[in-house]
C-alpha cells in the first residue's frame, strides 16, 4: 500500500509541474487552527493585491503573477513541506507569517538562494544584512515594536517611567520571547520594573496570568500574543477590570477579531503598528472594482480593510515593488529568485511611490541597503474604538531607540555568524 500511494503522489507531483514565465509568489498561509483568525485576513490581503495587479495592470512589468497557496496551520512541519513543495515552482519570495517557520527556513532559503521577507516578525537580528543575506524584515521588527511601546509610555508620562511596573504577557514561544531582551535593556535604561508572564500555546488558558496581574497591579500591561490568545487576554483583562487604556499590544495583537469578542469592554485597547489602518485609501476602490466585483476575492471576501488584511496587502505591495526594482536592475521582466533578492536589497519606498499606488501615507518611506535589511523601524500607535468598531492611529510613526536595538542586533547576529561561520555579505 505504501508503494502504491507513493507512486500516486509522484505521478501527481509530476503532473502539477511548473508553468513557465510566471512570477510565482508562494503564500504559506494558515486558514485553519488556533491562529487562523489572524492568518485568514493576512492571506486574503496578500492574494487580493496580486489579483489586483493581474487584473488591472496585467501583472508586474508585463509578466503575470501567480500565487501558490499552501496551508501550514502555523505548524513548522507542514511549513517545511510547503516550502519544499513550492520552491521548485520558481518561488520568488517567502513570507511564512510564523516566527517558528522563519527560524526553520533561514538556513534553507540562504542555501537555496531564495529571499525571505518577514515583515514585523521572524528573527529580529536578520535586520543585519551583512550576516543574513537572504532575510529581510523591513520596515519594522519586534525590537522596534518593543521600543515603540516604551516610547509611547514615556510620552504618556512626560518622559519619566522610572519605578513604573510593566507586565509582559507573551506567547511562550520563539515569537513571544523575542522582545524580552530589548525590554530588559530598556527597563535598565528607563528604570521601570518588568515582570514576565508566559502563556503556553495556544493561549486559551490565562486565568493564572491575569490573577497574577490583579495581584501585582502593574501600571501597564504589554502583550505579545497571536491567534486565540489575544481574544482571551483582552477578555480576561476586561474581567479583572483592568484599564484598557493601559493595555497595549504588539502589532500582532491589534486586529478587529482580537477585540470584537470582548465587546464594549475592549474600548480603548491599544496596539502599536508599522503601517496605516482603515479603508480610507484609493487602492481599495481598485480592489473593489477589479477584485471583489469580478468575484475574484480570496477567501470569503469579508476581510477587506481589516488591520491584518491591510498588512497582507502591504506585504504584497512591498514584494511587487521589489519585483519592479529587480526588473529594472537586471533589465528582464521574468526575474529569478536571486534577482528578486537584489531587488529587495535595492528597494526604495518613497511617499510619491505609495501615493502613485493609491496608498498615500500607508507606511513609512524607507530605503533598504545591503547592511540594513530592517528598514527605519518607525512605530505608530493605534487605538480601538468599540462603539464605531474601528482602529484609528493615535500616534504617528516615530523613530525607536536604535541605539539599544542596534547593539542587540549586532550582538545576536554576530553570535549567529560565529556559530555558522558566515563571512561578511556586503564587502
Amino acid at each position, binding site marked *: *500500500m*505504501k508503494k502504491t*500511494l*507513493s507512486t*500516486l*503522489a509522484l505521478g*501527481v*507531483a509530476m*503532473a*502539477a509541474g511548473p508553468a513557465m514565465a510566471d512570477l510565482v509568489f508562494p503564500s504559506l*498561509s494558515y*486558514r*485553519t487552527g488556533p491562529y*487562523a483568525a489572524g492568518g*485568514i485576513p493576512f492571506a486574503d490581503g496578500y492574494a487580493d493585491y496580486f489579483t489586483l495587479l493581474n487584473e488591472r495592470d496585467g501583472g508586474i512589468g508585463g509578466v503575470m503573477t501567480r500565487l501558490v*497557496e*499552501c*496551508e501550514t*496551520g502555523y*505548524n*513548522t*512541519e507542514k511549513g*517545511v*513541506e510547503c516550502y*519544499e*513543495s513550492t*520552491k*521548485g515552482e520558481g518561488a520568488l519570495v517567502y513570507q511564512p507569517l510564523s*516566527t*517558528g517557520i522563519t*527560524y*526553520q527556513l*533561514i*538556513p*534553507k532559503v*540562504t*542555501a*537555496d538562494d531564495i529571499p525571505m521577507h518577514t515583515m514585523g516578525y521572524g*528573527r529580529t537580528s536578520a535586520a543585519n544584512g551583512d550576516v543574513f543575506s537572504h532575510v529581510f524584515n523591513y520596515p519594522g521588527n519586534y525590537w522596534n515594536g518593543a521600543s515603540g511601546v516604551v516610547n509611547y509610555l514615556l510620552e504618556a508620562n512626560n518622559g519619566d517611567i522610572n519605578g513604573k511596573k510593566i507586565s509582559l504577557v507573551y506567547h*511562550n*514561544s*520563539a515569537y513571544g*520571547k*523575542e522582545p*524580552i*531582551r530589548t525590554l530588559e535593556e530598556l527597563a535598565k535604561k528607563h528604570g521601570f520594573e518588568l515582570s514576565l508572564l*508566559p502563556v*503556553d*500555546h495556544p493561549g486559551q488558558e490565562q486565568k493564572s496570568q491575569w490573577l497574577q496581574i490583579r495581584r501585582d497591579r502593574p501600571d501597564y500591561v504589554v502583550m505579545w500574543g497571536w491567534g486565540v490568545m489575544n481574544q482571551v487576554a483582552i477578555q480576561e483583562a476586561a474581567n479583572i477590570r483592568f484599564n484598557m487604556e493601559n493595555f497595549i499590544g504588539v502589532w500582532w495583537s491589534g486586529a478587529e477579531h482580537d477585540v470584537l469578542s470582548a465587546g464594549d469592554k475592549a474600548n480603548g485597547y491599544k496596539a502599536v503598528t508599522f503601517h496605516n489602518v482603515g479603508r480610507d485609501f484609493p487602492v481599495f476602490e481598485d480592489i473593489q472594482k477589479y477584485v471583489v466585483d469580478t468575484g475574484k476575492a480570496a*477567501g470569503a471576501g469579508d476581510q477587506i480593510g481589516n488591520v491584518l488584511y491591510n498588512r497582507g496587502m502591504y506585504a504584497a505591495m512591498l514584494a511587487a515593488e521589489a519585483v519592479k526594482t529587480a526588473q529594472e536592475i537586471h533589465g528582464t521582466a521574468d526575474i529569478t529568485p536571486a534577482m528578486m533578492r537584489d531587488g529587495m536589497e535595492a528597494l526604495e519606498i518613497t511617499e510619491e511611490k505609495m501615493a502613485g499606488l493609491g496608498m498615500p501615507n500607508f507606511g513609512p518611506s524607507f530605503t533598504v541597503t545591503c547592511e540594513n535589511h530592517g528598514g527605519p523601524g518607525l512605530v505608530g500607535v493605534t487605538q480601538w474604538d468599540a462603539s464605531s468598531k474601528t482602529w484609528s492611529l493615535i500616534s504617528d510613526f516615530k523613530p525607536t531607540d536604535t541605539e539599544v536595538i542596534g547593539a542587540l542586533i549586532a550582538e*545576536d547576529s554576530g553570535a549567529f555568524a560565529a*556559530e*555558522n561561520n558566515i563571512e561578511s555579505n556586503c564587502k
Partner: protein
Amino acid sequence: MFYREAGDFKVSYQQDSQTFPIKFDRYRYYAVMAFAFLVVPFVINDYWANAILLPFLIYSIAAIGLNILVGYCGQVSLGTGGFMAVGAYACYKLMTAFPDVSMIIHVLLAGGVTAVVCVGFGLPSLRIKGFYLAVATLAAQFFLVWLFNRVPWFYNYSASGQISAPERDVFGVIITGANATATATYLFCLVFLVLCALIARNLTRGTIGRTWMAIRDMDIAAEIIGVNPLKAKLTAFAVSGFFIGISGALFFAIYLGAVEVGEVFGINKSFLVLFMVIIGGLGSIFGSFAGAAFLVLLPVVLKVVGVDILGWPTDIVAHLQLVIVGALIIVFLIMEPHGLAQLWRVAKEKLRLWPFPH
C-alpha cells in the same frame, strides 16, 4: 503457490529461527533493502526527502520505540513527545558542546540519555497500571516540555528559546543544516531505522521480548512463572526510551533543523505516535512502519489530490484532512482493531493457500 514453507528446507538452527522463514518473504525483504539503499538515494530530491521520507523514517523509529512499550510490554505511555524532546535537547547540547565528535555518537548518546530519563518516569509503572500509568506518563510529557522552556541552559541561553542545529558532518559528508543533501540525510536516517528495526525485531523474539509479552498478557501469572516485573518493565522503558530518543534527535537535527519545544514536541506528538502504533498494529514491528507511513503519507496525498489536482481551497482541504483522518481512525478501530499489521497477516495467510483456498 510461491508463498509457502514447503520445499524450503532448513538444515540448521540458525535457518530455523531466522526472521523471515519463508523464501518469498526473505527475497522481498532483500529487494526492499536494495531498493531503499541502492535506488532511492539516487533518485531522491529535496521534496521527497523533507516532506515524505525523512518524517516517515523518523516516525517509524519513534513508533517502534512506543510499540515496544505499549504493544509488547502493555505499558500505556502518553509521554512520547516529551521523550522525543529529551532526545532532541540531549543531541543539541552534545552537538554544541562537542562539535568534533561524530553525529552518530551524538545521536546514540541522545538515545541513551532518553533511556535513562524514560526509566526514571517508568518507575511508577511498578505500582500503577493502565489509565493511571497513562496519566503518570502524561505528567512526564508536560513536565519535560515545561522544563525545556523554563531552563535556559537547555537552549544555550538563546534569545528566542529555540534550538537550531549547527552544521555537522559524518565522515566528511554534511548531514545537518541547510547544506546537507537529500541523499545524505536520507541515508543517515535510514541506517538508524534499519538498525533499530533489526534490534527491536530480535529483542522481541528473544528472552527479553517474551518476558515483556508475559507481563503484558498477565503480570501476576508472569511473576509466578518467574518473570521479574521490575526488570521486564524497566528494560521495556529503557529500550523504548532509547529508540524514541534517537527519533527525537534525528527529528530535530536532521529533519527540522530548528525546534520550538512546545510546538514540535507537544502533546499532539504523543498522540500522533500513539495513533501510528494503534493504526499500524500493537505488538508488531511491521505495524510500526505501516502506521508511520499511513499517517505521514495520508495528509500529503490528501493535499496533493485536493489542492493540486482538484484545485480546492487550501483551508477546505485542511479541514477535510482532519475529518478523513479522524474517520479512518474510528473505522480502523472498529473494523480492524489489530491494525494494518493484521491485514498484512491475513493477506499472508490467504497467500499461503492461494490459489487453492480449500
